[in-house]
């Protein structure tokens, strides 16, 4: 057996797009699987294992059985990584937390809503259930950031994850502020690290990386008024990725 760290990838409630970003690493995936032993990864291989050092968790926790499975993974892994917005902040799955769960089930499953295998509960992020050592933000994750954090973990170095808002990277990209064009961009309160990808393409920040540690929500409301926009519009936009929580931090 090699002494390379054994890595397993697991998914919960999500679209599996973040895992797909790992599959999509192209030539860098050879570097990754050269540096670690991948022992379980449902999206990319058939093998399974209960013996691993690093668990990469994608998706949010929405069912009692998810919680049990996550606890089991946590008990087996030395290092646990939350991968992507669903895992780090609950993601868009948290939208349902804004409604009565019975209504949600009815809308989604219709007449089958009460069947036991379709049971669902309020959405939680991975960090709301177990201790998380590293958070890899984004919907989807940024591939470069993923490989950077993996190399940091493998070398024992603390990764530098931006604590500041998207505006920093947006300004460095020499972009005109989207607020000047009438868009309620969430950039000022959302954690950077994406390279301001959406604003650089002319789309407002949707907030997929979650709030900065200390978001100034009141300032956001003031600015909305200053620009003559509707605060309800801002709230709705914050709901997409920010329902029910303001921030998360990794313990690692």
């Amino acid at each position, binding site marked *: 057996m090699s002494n390379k760290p054994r890595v397993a990838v697991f998914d919960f409630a999500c679209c599996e797009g973040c895992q797909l970003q790992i599959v999509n690493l192209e030539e860098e995936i050879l570097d990754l699987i050269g540096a670690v032993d991948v022992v379980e990864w449902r999206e990319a291989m058939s093998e399974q294992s209960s013996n691993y050092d690093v668990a990469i968790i994608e998706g949010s926790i929405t069912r009692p059985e998810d919680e049990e499975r996550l606890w089991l993974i946590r008990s087996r892994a030395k290092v646990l990584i939350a991968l992507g917005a669903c895992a780090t902040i609950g993601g868009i799955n948290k939208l349902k937390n804004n409604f009565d769960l019975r209504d949600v089930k009815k809308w989604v499953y219709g007449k089958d809503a009460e069947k036991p295998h379709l049971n669902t509960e309020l959405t939680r992020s991975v960090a709301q259930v177990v201790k998380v050592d590293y958070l890899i933000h984004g919907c989807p994750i940024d591939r470069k950031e993923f490989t950077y954090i993996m*190399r940091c973990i493998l070398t024992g170095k603390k990764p530098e994850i931006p604590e500041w808002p998207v505006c920093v990277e947006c*300004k460095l990209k020499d972009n*005109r502020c989207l607020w000047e064009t009438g868009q309620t961009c969430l950039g000022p309160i959302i954690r950077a690290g994406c390279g301001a990808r959406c604003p650089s393409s002319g789309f407002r920040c949707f907030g997929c990386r979650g709030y*900065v540690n200390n978001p*100034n929500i009141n300032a956001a409301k003031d600015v909305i008024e*200053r620009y003559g926009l509707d605060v309800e519009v801002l709230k709705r936009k914050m709901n997409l990725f920010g329902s029910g929580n303001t921030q998360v931090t990794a313990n690692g």
Partner: protein
Amino acid sequence: MSIKKITKQAFANFIDNLIKTATVYGVQPKGERFDFAPLASAKDLRLDYDVTLLPPKRFFQPTTETLLTFDGEGRYKSNFDNENFILLGVHPYDMVAINQMDKIFSKDYYDEHYMKRRNNATIIACDVLTPSENVFAASMGMATVSEGFDILLTDIGDGYVAEAGTEKGNALLAKAETTDANEKDLEKRQKLQQDNQKNLNKHKLKCKPSDIPNLLERAYKHPVWEEKAKTCFSCGSCNTVCPTCYCFNVQDSFNWDLKSGKRQRTWDGCLLDGFTKVAGEHEFRSNRADRFRHRFYRKGKYVPEKLNGQISCVGCGRCVGACLPDIANPVKVFNRLVDDLGLL
């Protein structure tokens, strides 16, 4: 040094010839705003611009740069940019900022990475034709500039007055088809510069720039910092767009062999959460208002102490426009202090 007159057509020919042999970054439209970008043709150049989105500091201090690479076995190799380039269309206030940064990056510690780029650069400055919405360079005494540039252009209608500021500028100007500037040309130039010294002033400072250090001396506990910082996003936009903000962070990262890697320097900003975080997670300016205050002290007191008293706000007005909650305007803050504390 020579002062020449160059017609617009001769100037366009001069620039188009320059582009053939040199890398030229000139001011061009970017959407509805302006930006320094690689120049492909003189006709793309917009010397009538108001203000660029980012100041030209990124040509000397890139937003991210690799300082060195290491092999993990004790050997490292410093990395320098050796490309010569021409920066075309630098406004006087930005030229003043570059002059200040040249001192900052060479005075106490000679920063080879910055200075190499700086020495590789030829700067063609130009007097302002269109005042931007928030410019207040006149209040700061920085609406015109007399040094630092290799060539200074002033649009006098039927052509430019071109003044060489250095031997490098002189030699470059010799490649253009010029005549000696006559008295009338120089009068026109003087008129434009005098007008700019009055008119580049959309926000009027109620004191002399030289009063600011003393004002700040007495303002450390003033309520304005707390009041304004209440709506501060800590987004650092006032830092990133500022031509005299030069703080940086340095980080190492490893390659996939987990041994070799690189050391990179990136822009940082004193308004950002985590800016003052040090080992052990200790953070000595975790309070938003403390960080907000710090920027004004940097511009009005700390950096001037390194620059023989010259205030390191050049009045470009970029922070005024970049600040969503409209709290960054240095003139508003300094005027408030003048009102409340008076001048000694």
